Structure formats: C-alpha cells, structure tokens
C-alpha cells in the first residue's frame, strides 16, 4: 500500500518500522473476516484493515491522536487473529503497539480514564498490590448489583467487580526465587516465568508446572529479579514501564543463562509468552549488550506445551474418561502460532479433546480489555461459551490465565492445560473436576 512519510519522519526508527509494515499490506480485506470486532460491529473502522488505515493516516500527518482514532484502536483486542489470516505477512502487532505508544504520548484521555489506566498499569504487574486490590474488590463485590446504568463507567465498574473472585487464594510459596531440583538425574534446566496476575489469581498453575517439570527430570529456576513481562503496560501504550519490566526479566534470565545455563525460558501464561518472544523486537534499538540479550531470551522462550512436546511427556495414570473442550487462547494460536501441541498433549494424557466452532475468535478477555471494553468483551464471552458448551464437554482447558478467568463461573470447570497434564502424570486433580 502507498505511504506518505517524509525522509525526516523515516529517520525515526519506530516510524520506519511502521512504514515497512504498511508497505506489506495490500488492502485485500481478508483480515476483516476473522476479526472479532468486525464480526460483531460490522464497520470497516472496527476491522484490522480500517485500523491500519486510521493509524497510517495518524502517523503520516504526524498530528496528535484524536478521539475518533483512539476509539477504534481501543476497541482492538490485540488478539492477532488478523495476523494468522493475513496472506501478505503484515505485522499488525508491531504497528498497533507503535500506535498505542503514539496515542499515549499525544492524546489526553478523560480524567477517569487516565486514572483507571494508570492504576491498572501500577497494580496488575505487582502481585502484592493486586492481591490487596482483589481482596478489597471481593468485599465490595455485592455492590456490583447496585451499579446501574449503561454508561462506560457503570459497565466498567460492574465488569471489574464481577471478575474479582469471591475468595482470593493465599500467596503460594513457589514464586519465591529459588531452584527446584529435578527428580532423578537432571535432563534439562529451565527458567519459569512466574508472572504477575496469574500467581495471584491461580497460584496452582505454577505449582502444577513446577511439579510436572521436576518430576520429568527438569530443573526449574525461579530467577531473582524476574517478574511481570510488561505486556499489560505495553498494550496500554505505557512504553517506559513496559521496557523497565521487560529489561528486568532479560537481566535476570541472562544471568541464569550465563551462569549455570538455560535450555529454555518456560512460560505458562501465553499472553506473557507472546510478549517475551517479542523482546528481541522491543529492544532492537537498545544499546548492546541489551539488544542481543533480548534477542537471545526471545529465542529461548517456549510455551509450556511447546517445551513438553519437545522434551517428551507421558502420563502415568489411566485415561480419566473425560472430554475436554480445548479453548485456544489468542496469544497462543495467533500470537505464538502454537495450535497443535496442547491438543496433542491432552490427547496423549488420555483425554478426549474437542474444539468449539469459531476457534479463531477471541473470548473477550484480552489482557485488561474485559475491564476497559466490557460490552464487547461480554458479547464475545457469551459467544465463546455457547460454542464451547455445544461440544458437550466435561471441562474446558486453556493455556492463558486471562481466558481462564473470563470463561470461569459459567457452569463448567475451566483449568489450565498444564494442570491436566500434571494430574495425569501423577499430580493432584485440579479442583472442580467431575470425578
């Protein structure tokens, strides 16, 4: 597609990358068909191609972002379904990341919105703050029923209170930095990203991962200094805090890699995995040695199901006779293009695996999207649950904490894939599994 950037504008490395992305797009429109917001709203402006056009115009003219552009960019889930569909190989993720930073720098959101975004960006990446906030929300949860009206504020309040669990699980000891030795001879050594929101909402996912890996003969390192991947800030255009969080992880894992060595950085929250695999790009303009270290860490990063597929997995229990509806998290299927591995592992573990209709469509969770765009997120959630339930499963499994939270509480147990794999390899059954 034609672009109109001046030579001066192209001196800026971010603009130069975005120009390259835009030049790859031929405006064929295939992406519109698999975009959840286009499917729901039926407006070019709420499709990837429309957003690409809005962003192109904003960047070319160099004018501050306006409400109209922000409205449509904000509605993007960053599910990256468009990237799976795009025959031309347009890197929409990098383009929209740039647009979000540009918006954060040039657009002044209404006060309440600014506060909300700042608070989310501060609280979610910090487990102790997030745990406190959830406990507070849990107490005020009944108020949710009293919030009336159809304003954005009312919708967001209701969404936040409904997502807060009634009971916040106690902090798990497994996230404290340390080394978990392999059972028997050590066959591999990996760093586990323990993440931020996931360890507060469902500490049992990291526990299951560590149990399973060490039992298989893998030494698991929870590295000192590693924490949130930075994705939440990154997707809200909070560039500096995203880079700081990412930088801390890169430093922590590089130390481990240079020390006793790492065969992989294993991630069990696929939203984080997509971002960590992109560290190499995020740090492309940073000075050495950070640039190459970021690239090295991205290269080492594997989703837990990718690692298990390569390393080898076998169950030790007899097949449980359960049907699992596998929900493919967008960050896993579109962001990382990991599609076959989780299903193959679940089948190898002895489950009957079924897939819903429209597997490519997002469930509406999408990081903080269900808090910021509750109406669209709610519609996608209903659609996803309906499709999942139609497969007649005993339970749902997914590889990302956001989806698990979004789909929980609708009558079917929703668990992380790794919990099922751990169970069948000798671990405890995840809570709520029909027995």
């Amino acid at each position, binding site marked *: 597609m034609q672009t109109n950037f001046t030579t001066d504008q192209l001196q800026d490395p971010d603009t130069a990358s975005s120009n390259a992305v835009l030049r790859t797009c031929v405006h*064929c429109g295939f992406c519109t*068909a698999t975009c959840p917001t286009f499917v729901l709203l039926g407006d070019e*402006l709420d499709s990837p191609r429309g957003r690409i056009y*809005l962003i192109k115009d904003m960047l070319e003219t160099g004018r501050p972002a306006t409400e109209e552009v922000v409205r449509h960019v904000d509605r993007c889930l960053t599910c990256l379904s468009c990237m799976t569909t795009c025959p031309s190989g347009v890197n929409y993720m990098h383009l929209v990341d740039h647009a979000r930073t540009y918006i954060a720098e040039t657009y002044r959101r209404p006060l309440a919105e600014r506060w909300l975004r700042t608070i989310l960006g501060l609280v979610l990446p910090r487990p102790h703050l997030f745990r406190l906030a959830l406990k507070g929300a849990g107490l005020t949860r009944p108020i949710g029923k009293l919030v009336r009206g159809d304003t954005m504020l009312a919708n967001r309040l209701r969404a936040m209170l409904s997502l807060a669990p009634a009971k916040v699980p106690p902090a798990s000891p497994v996230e404290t930095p340390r080394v978990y030795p392999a059972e028997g001879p050590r066959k591999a050594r990996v760093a586990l990203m323990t993440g931020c929101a996931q360890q507060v909402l469902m500490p049992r996912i990291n526990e299951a991962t560590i149990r399973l890996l060490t039992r298989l003969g893998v030494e698991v390192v929870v590295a000192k200094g590693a924490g949130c991947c930075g994705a939440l800030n990154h997707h809200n255009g909070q560039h500096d805090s995203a880079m700081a969080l990412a930088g801390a992880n890169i430093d922590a894992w590089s130390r481990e890699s240079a020390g006793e060595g790492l065969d992989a950085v294993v991630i069990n929250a696929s939203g984080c995995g997509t971002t960590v695999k992109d560290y190499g790009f995020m740090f492309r303009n940073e000075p050495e040695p950070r640039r190459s270290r970021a690239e090295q860490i991205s290269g080492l990063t594997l989703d837990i199901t990718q690692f298990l597929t390569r390393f080898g997995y076998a169950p030790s229990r007899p097949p449980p006779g359960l049907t699992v509806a596998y929900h493919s998290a967008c960050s896993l299927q579109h962001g990382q293009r990991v599609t076959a591995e989780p299903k193959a592992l679940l089948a190898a573990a002895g489950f009957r695996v079924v897939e819903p209709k429209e597997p490519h469509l997002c469930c509406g969770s999408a990081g903080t999207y269900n808090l910021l765009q509750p109406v669209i997120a709610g519609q996608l959630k209903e659609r996803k649950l309906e499709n999942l339930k139609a497969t007649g499963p005993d339970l749902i499994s997914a590889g990302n904490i956001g989806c698990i939270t979004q789909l929980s509480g609708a009558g079917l147990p929703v668990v992380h894939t790794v919990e099922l794999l751990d169970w069948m390899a000798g671990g405890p059954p995840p809570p709520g599994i029909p027995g």
Partner: protein
Amino acid sequence: MIRQPDPKPDVMRRRDSIVAGLRKLLPESGVIAEPLRLKPYETDGLTAYRQVPLAVALPETTEQVAAILRFCHQNGVRIVPRGAGTSLSGGALPLEDGIVLGMMRMKKILDIDFADRCATVQAGVTNIGITNAVSANNFFYAPDPSSQLACMIGGNVGMNSGGPHCLKYGVTANNLLGLKIVTIEGEIIDIGGAHLDSAGYDWLGLLTGSEGQLAVVTEVTVRILHGPEGARAMLAAFKSNEIAGAAVDAIISSGVIPVALEFMDRPAIHACEEFAHAGYPLDAEAMLIIEVEGSVTEQDILLEKLSDICRRFDPISIRVSQSPEESLAIWKGRKAAFGAVGRISPDYLCMDGTIPTSRLPEVLRRTQEMAAAVNLQVANIFHAGDGNLHPLIMYDANDPASLHKAEVLGADLLKLCVEVGGCLTGEHGVGVEKRDLMHVQFEPHELEQQRRIKSAFDPEWLLNPSKVFPLAEPAVAAAVLPQAA
C-alpha cells in the same frame, strides 16, 4: 490515473442536511460522516484509486436500505453500494458527492432448506459463511472466489463472481435462485424464489453482474449442493508458462473436465509457498493445480487420465495429494495468492481478462514479453480451465511513474484478450478499472444500448454511476421501467 466525475455543487452544499437526514433513518453508529473516520472507506481492494465519500451508511435491514435509497433519490444523492470492500476492479470506489452504502451489517442467515437445496441469506453474509452454515450437513455453496473468506454474497451477485470450482459448477449466475432488491425509488422487489428458473423474463440474469448499477441487493437465495463423495488435488509442474498453458488446452479439449484447473507461475508459487507451506514445486516455472471429485475409483481413473495428458508436456513433477490436509494446504496457498503477492511486491494491479483456452500458450508468452519490454514483473495466478487470466502487475505505489507504467501494461494485456476473442473481465467486474476500455470491447451503439438498460432502472444515474461505462459519454434519456418489476 482514473478520472472521477465532478461532484454536484448543490449536493456538496447540502452535505450537513443530507447527513442529518441519514441519521434520522439509522441508529447512531450506522452513519459515519467525520472526515477522519471516512478515510478508511476511501478505497477497496484496488488501492491505486481513492476517494473519500460524503458519508457512509450502514443499514441492518432491507427496510432501512429502502429508506436510505428513497431519501437519496429524493435528494439527488449518488450511492455506491459496498460489501466487504474486496473488489479488485474498484467496484466500491466512492464518489465525493455520494454516500457509501455498506452492507456488512446485513449478515443474517435467514433460511436453510436442505430438502429443496437452497439457502436465503442477507447480502452481507460472506461467501464462505454460506458454506459454513450448511457444511455440517455436508452441503456447500459452489462458487468460491479466492476472497471467499471475506467477500460478501451481495458483492458476488454484483460482479457475477467466479472461483476455481466454477469450472464444474458455474459462476454466481448459475447458482442463484432468487433476490430481494431495492430500487432507487426505495421499492422492495422479490425476484425468483426457491425454485429453478424464475417466471417471466430472466431478471436474475440481468441483475447478476450489474455492478450495483440497477438496484441494491439485500437478500439472496442460492442453490446449495451436496458435497461430493470425495475430492483429490494434484500438482503438475512445468518448465514454462507456455508449456503449462498448452497442457491446459490439451486437458480441456480432451473432454475430461476436472472440478478445478488452476495455474500459478514462478513468482506466485514462491509467494504462496511462504504463506501456506503446501510443498509447491519451487523449481517449476509454472504449476497446475488440478482437482477431481467423486468416488475413489472415479478419482483414480480421472487422475490417471489427467496425469497421462500432463506427461505429454515434459513435466518436472506430478504429485497427487495423499490426504485431506495436504489438499487443504494446496488450496490455502492458491486462495491466498493475491494477498501473498504482497510479500514480494508492495502493490499490484490484478487484471481479469478471459480468453478461449486454446489461445492460452500464445497469450501467456506474449504477456511475459510485454511485461519484460516495459521492465515490470507479472505474477500469473488464474482459473486456467475457464481461460480466466489474472496477471498481477507488480508496481510500487510510492513511485507514480511505476503506477502509470502498470496501468498502461494492464490496458495492453486486456486489449490482447479482446484481440484473441476474449473479454475484459471474467469475474471481477468492470468497475472503475476497465471502464475506459469498454470501447475496445463494444461499438458505441452497443454501449448505448446497455446505458439505456441502466437508465430504465435508474433514470438519474444515482446508483454507482461512475463505473462500467466510459465517463466522457453523455448520459442517455430514460427508457420505460420494465413492468415485470
């Protein structure tokens, strides 16, 4: 560069009141009028041409479409209907003084009747959406344009779209049973129905391929077919475009009609392989995708016959797909071909000429010669069995001279198609792209007759007026509106 008609000054002056009038007819999100939000509607799949419209209207019901058309008719406002905006001929290129009537919110499946093998859907349902709605019962909708994932059935009717499997099953016109249309006056009319062949004159035939110039289609009843017992694809690789073209001619003239017979040349093979990982022969100059259907025995016999014919043309390789997954990957690459060319060139013009298959070798050779003479790269991906060519002329839109060169070559290639006894368009429509070449195909009086038909439906030329006919010609006085409507 394509010329756009001059906007009507009085319409431009009344812009605000026109927008206000539209807002009374549609919910708030259904009217777009802010300049920044209009910009993404300025073009479709043919990005060389762009025009920001006066406004965009997004109706959800036939009644809303009727209200909009009635309003536009009363106020002398031009209308450009638009489906998914995937047109490669600029069929949905807006007008400065016209509204874009976007049909993408009309996406309801209204009725599926397996006993009578038909389905009725709103115009904004995607082509693949029809097949998806009936596939659980092993039915499908046959015409399968490569953009079928995104393109909408209303647009398919407007352009009489084809696709690889049309070699066996025919194009849109052959699979249509009924239409609900809205006239420019806002009258809602049903044509045809769930039965084969409509009563009276063949209005369906007239409306199909009329490029949104006669009426706006809001509902479509199509024939759905029971899926074949089985299907298998085969790849045959050749040493030149000309040889592969000769193989196509030999297949068609032998009387064996495969269900699809597609052609891809070297640049296309490489671009698509990178996206689809289908195992295309990267050492070939040209490749044919040949698909057969039926029972396993039937497939075996047909594949053997087709392989025998291909072997007469010194093939580099012949490979028969061994699994449904393999066939799926082969088709995934083919269907994504135009987009995949975005990997090797920032922009392209996609031509759509159709020729008698016996002339394929000659036209393919001359295409390469003509492109080489002006130093442009061309990728060929097309429905060979139908003789429906799609030379994709690659250019760089950031270099105006390159676009001009591509336009001239495109026109010359289409003239070549007409010269060998073919026509300007097989399935993409004339749109704005081939408008000025219509005189190559038709004598002035022939164009005049066709204009009269347009005038009979739309005397003031408000419906998609700047397409299909060369702009310079004077408008024709209205004929009488046909009674059958």
